[in-house]
């Protein structure tokens, strides 16, 4: 197991490097002159040269890449000041350090991701399993029907509806906003509850359907029938034998969803006017802010790789056949 983790971690480091390189050189290959973009309308040649110098754009491309990559581990010095490790560079436009910008936005994204995940895992898997357990009953039909309807909704459709009902027309709640948890736990909870719940609703629907079908599939497995043939009760067999196998597809999809959300839930953020990682990534790409885009890409890729490793470890816990091979 330890060997497996070490091997996967080394693989992840290499992958991160390759992703960084790919992003960097794609960006450089794009026909844009960042200095003139940053310079604005009335751009004197002198100012342009200064900007080039300040951004380090007159260095060879390989040198720029090297500086960027070493900066992550050792920090860098910019004319405007020192950027300590992990340094993801300095935004071309705002001049802020990319790392600290990302860290500013990250708590919000983390709140959305973890909060949403807890809600949709508990409600979604719970409802799906209940539906499978009482297959064909009213509960099953209701859960299946509701998840059908909800999963065809979109956040940008459901979000505004909820806002109109709870905020604009009745004033029951305030506009969603992010208050740091450490500052005001209640404000944090209330401020984020609408975005978290709306996002979770869409996912809940998907997870309900997935949990139900995967459970029904498992219940038809022969080893589940064997357990029944031993005289184990329906409940016991359901929760000990069938449940475990049904987790495998759920863990797979959850790993993908979770890391994607950590990389930024753009639609949710835009719908509720929140400033998270997703919006940062969009800004970086549309304004051709190389360091910002690189930073967001690397942080996102980092989470995807970490979650991938965690997913594989989870498989090993669920299924002993994976553990030993």
């Amino acid at each position: 197991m330890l060997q497996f983790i070490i091997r996967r971690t080394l693989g992840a480091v290499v992958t991160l490097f390759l992703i960084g390189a790919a992003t960097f050189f794609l960006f450089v290959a794009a026909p844009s002159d960042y200095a003139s973009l940053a310079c604005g309308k009335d751009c004197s040649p002198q100012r342009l040269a200064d900007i080039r110098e300040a951004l380090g754009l007159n260095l060879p491309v390989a040198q720029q890449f090297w500086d960027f990559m070493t900066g992550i581990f050792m920090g860098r010095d910019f004319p405007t000041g020192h950027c300590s490790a992990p340094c993801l560079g300095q935004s071309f436009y705002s001049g802020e350090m990319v790392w600290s910008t990302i860290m500013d936005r990250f708590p919000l994204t983390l709140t959305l991701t973890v909060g949403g995940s807890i809600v949709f895992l508990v409600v979604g898997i719970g409802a799906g399993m209940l539906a499978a357990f009482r297959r064909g009953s009213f509960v099953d039909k209701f859960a299946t029907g509701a998840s059908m309807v909800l999963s065809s909704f979109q956040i940008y459709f459901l979000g505004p509806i909820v806002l109109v009902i709870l905020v604009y027309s009745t004033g029951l709640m305030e506009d969603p906003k992010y208050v740091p948890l450490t500052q005001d736990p209640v404000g944090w909870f209330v401020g984020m509850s609408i975005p978290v719940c709306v996002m979770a609703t869409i996912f809940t629907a998907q997870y309900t359907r997935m949990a139900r079908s995967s459970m029904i599939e498992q219940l038809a497995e022969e080893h589940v029938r064997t357990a029944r043939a031993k005289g184990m009760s329906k409940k016991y067999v359901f929760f000990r034998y069938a449940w475990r196998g049904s987790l495998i597809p759920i863990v797979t999809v959850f790993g993908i969803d979770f890391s994607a959300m950590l990389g930024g839930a753009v639609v949710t953020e835009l719908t509720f006017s929140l400033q998270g990682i997703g919006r940062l990534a969009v800004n970086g790409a549309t304004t051709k802010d190389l360091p910002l885009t690189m930073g967001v890409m690397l942080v996102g890729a980092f989470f995807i790789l970490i979650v991938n490793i965690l997913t594989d470890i989870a498989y090993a816990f669920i299924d002993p056949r994976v553990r030993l091979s």
Partner: protein
Amino acid sequence: MTTLTKTEDASAPTGPESFLSVRDLKVTFSTEDGPVKAVDGLSFDVQRGKTLGIVGESGSGKSVTNLTILGLHSPRTTTVDGEIVMDGKELITASEKELEQLRGNKMAMIFQDPLTALSPFYTVGRQLSEPFMKHRGASKKEAKDRAIEMLTKVGIPQPKTRFDDYPHQFSGGMRQRAMIAMALMCDPDLLIADEPTTALDVTVQAQILDLLKDLQQEFGSAIIFITHDLGVISQMADDLLVMYAGRAVERGSAREVMSTPKHPYTWGLLSSMPRLDSNLDEALEPIPGAPPSLLTPPDGCRFHPRCAYTDLVPGNQCSTTRPPLGDGRASACHLTAEQKQTLFIDKIQPRLR
């Protein structure tokens, strides 16, 4: 539809010591295309300490019958009629709770493919211990001792360390042994073995069969042995029941059925069986055609579309009237006893030599 000249209800041999008795069992699945009569009027008995072999092609209703005895059919899509009495207890009308008390305890099942029939998620030891803890109220420690005892009995080397292994760490033969050990944990009075050796190679198969026989002598269980392998069944069974398309077509002691079969279907089964000592130049005789769809089974004798001897029966009896299965040694066929004997001696026996 079929005219029943005589129901099988009272016809099967009823010994006073008969431990399990199945009467006129009908199992119907409702499917999207309509009802499928998987088992249609089946009766048989099994005595303590004896083995009943059930033979037939895939889809003849062998496995369905036995899942129904255990009550493991899906209640949503299945209707069951008739009577299953085990040791004086009616099983079809029994509640789920009562059945749970019996399963794995008084009646146990050995499944065909031990790789899929054992859970990949739990150790062999745990899967063995569970029924013992449930039915005997045993502690974990007691159940472990019992499981190790049973693993030893079925011939698994180093049972103490094997107890903590997962099924995928066992070889195919070992897994089937573990499966048998699991079925025997609570000394069941009735053991149903559903093609327990089909997934194994021949040498392992012989070991498993010997093991089952030894264990039967030791525990005195009644065994229902399902197979489509006539070679295996002739070694194992005391009595034989040949099934075709959800019905019993021939019944008798294993020796009688194997040496003087009376039903054209049984003839076909025997003729299509390869033998080690047979002449290499002689081709095997497969039964022409395929088993009928149970959605729209043929009227009359269900075997008549594939039967070569329907011309010998006067009228269109074969396609209109369901032939009854008589008492004791019997076959459900419209041919007369003399015709059967002549046909067997003239046409079938030479092929089996």
